[in-house]
């Protein structure tokens, strides 16, 4: 990822204070959701940029639904990007980020197997129904049930059930 070489303090001057506040409060969360899906920080940050651009174009910065919109858009945009990956980019992504599991990093065979597992996990996410995959991405990115309900426009009381179904579908697909 190439970042523009400019002074951040100067660059942010043109967006409204409301939008800047929203960006600062939600950027890390949006990247986190996308990263949970893509397992590639550069790609997740690209998705986050696109998500904020879409919001900036289409919604007022002080919209009450702003945070929920960004969370849902992050999940959907990341899933869309995931489905669009070709095999080569998937391999590159697998090599780019170390696993969070207890992998013996100095054992190439274990590392390769773990990478393959992660690729399969991402393939499963790409195959799941959109809402199920989004649910998993949001939940395992740390959103509360209330935040998930707001993002996916479902009742908070239904999130637990929907999440269990999504997890069941995930397990079935992973076998």
């Amino acid at each position: 990822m190439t970042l523009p070489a400019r002074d951040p303090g100067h660059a942010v001057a043109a967006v409204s204070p409301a939008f800047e506040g929203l960006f600062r409060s939600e950027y890390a969360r949006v990247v986190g959701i996308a990263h949970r899906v893509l397992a590639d920080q550069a790609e997740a940050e690209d998705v986050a940029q696109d998500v904020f651009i879409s919001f900036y174009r289409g919604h007022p910065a002080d919209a009450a639904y702003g945070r929920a919109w960004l969370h849902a858009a992050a999940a959907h945009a990341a899933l869309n990007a995931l489905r669009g990956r070709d095999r080569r980019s998937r391999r590159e992504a697998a090599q780019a980020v170390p696993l969070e599991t207890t992998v013996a990093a100095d054992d190439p065979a274990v590392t390769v197997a773990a990478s393959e597992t992660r690729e399969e996990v991402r393939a499963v996410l790409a195959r799941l129904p959109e809402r199920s995959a989004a649910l998993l991405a949001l939940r395992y990115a740390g959103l509360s049930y209330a935040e998930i309900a707001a993002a996916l426009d479902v009742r908070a009381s239904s999130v637990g059930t929907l999440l269990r179904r999504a997890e069941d579908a995930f397990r079935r697909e992973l076998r």
Partner: protein
Amino acid sequence: MNDTQIERTLGTTEPRVNTDEALARFQARVQTEGIVPVASVPRRRVTSRWVQGLAAAAGVVIVASTLAFSGLAGSILQIFEPKSVVAVPISQSDLNYLGQACAGLNLQECMGAYGTFEWTAPPQPKEVTSRAQASALAGFTALAPSSVPSSVTGDPRYGVINRSTATFTFSADSTRQSAARQNRTPPPMPANIDGSKLFITGGPAVVQIWGAPAGTASGPGSDIPTLIVGQAKAPTVSSDGITVDELRSYLLSQPGISPQLAAAIRAIGDPSSTLPVPVPAELAISHPVTVQGVQGLFIGDNTGIAGAVIWQKDGMMFEVIGSFTESQALAIANSMR
């Protein structure tokens, strides 16, 4: 596999972000691409977004009819029934030539320039209270998205448009008079076209609108539908004798039709089964997409504020319209069950 194991399976290292740099990057992109925030985009005040939305969502039928009758498309055949959709870019000069009546999808005014348009069964939108009721009235199962973005909230309103039929009779006299009022000299209408008739059917159609108000608008931007889903029986057109080639040649000979538009119309492979969708060339983008397993069309305005997906499947036309990105619009379209 328990939750912890799923967590571990889905796990990635938590990203460490530099929000200042990210904001600078965002700002640079906004400046480079000239992106305008929505707050600075003026929105027209309208009296009833519900009515406007209903009309917009019925566009699959109306657009097809308008295109066929307005001279934009070469898809007028003895039998016309779309199996696919294709974008036809229309420039501002084309729109100027066709006039506001055609651009505004007013069939009767638009077609008055070429002959006589008459509804034999006019469209009569009716609001119902449920999808089941809409399906029963329309005579087909109205599909609904199973997943929508969080910006789409609440329950939809349902509208049903009856099966509508119309007849259009070409008239060389009307064409001459209309052209004379605009100080134009039209090419002569071939004798076999003068007096010939076209018969069109459209609908029934079901329209579902999220975010439409119960009453009339109270202010600008306060009642814009967040999502419109339209579904209609594919329109059909038949004639009492003229062929598509005769008609296409005549229509493309009209002064004011740009070479680009004429080429786009000629490029339609099978006009008897292709629904041309007009896309303002300067204002919108469009490209084919795969939706519900078939080829459809994505249309988005250049600002990224609005997007639509249109497709045909199993004799039905579908469209999804809203303030969505392409991926969002496709996700909604693909979730329709």
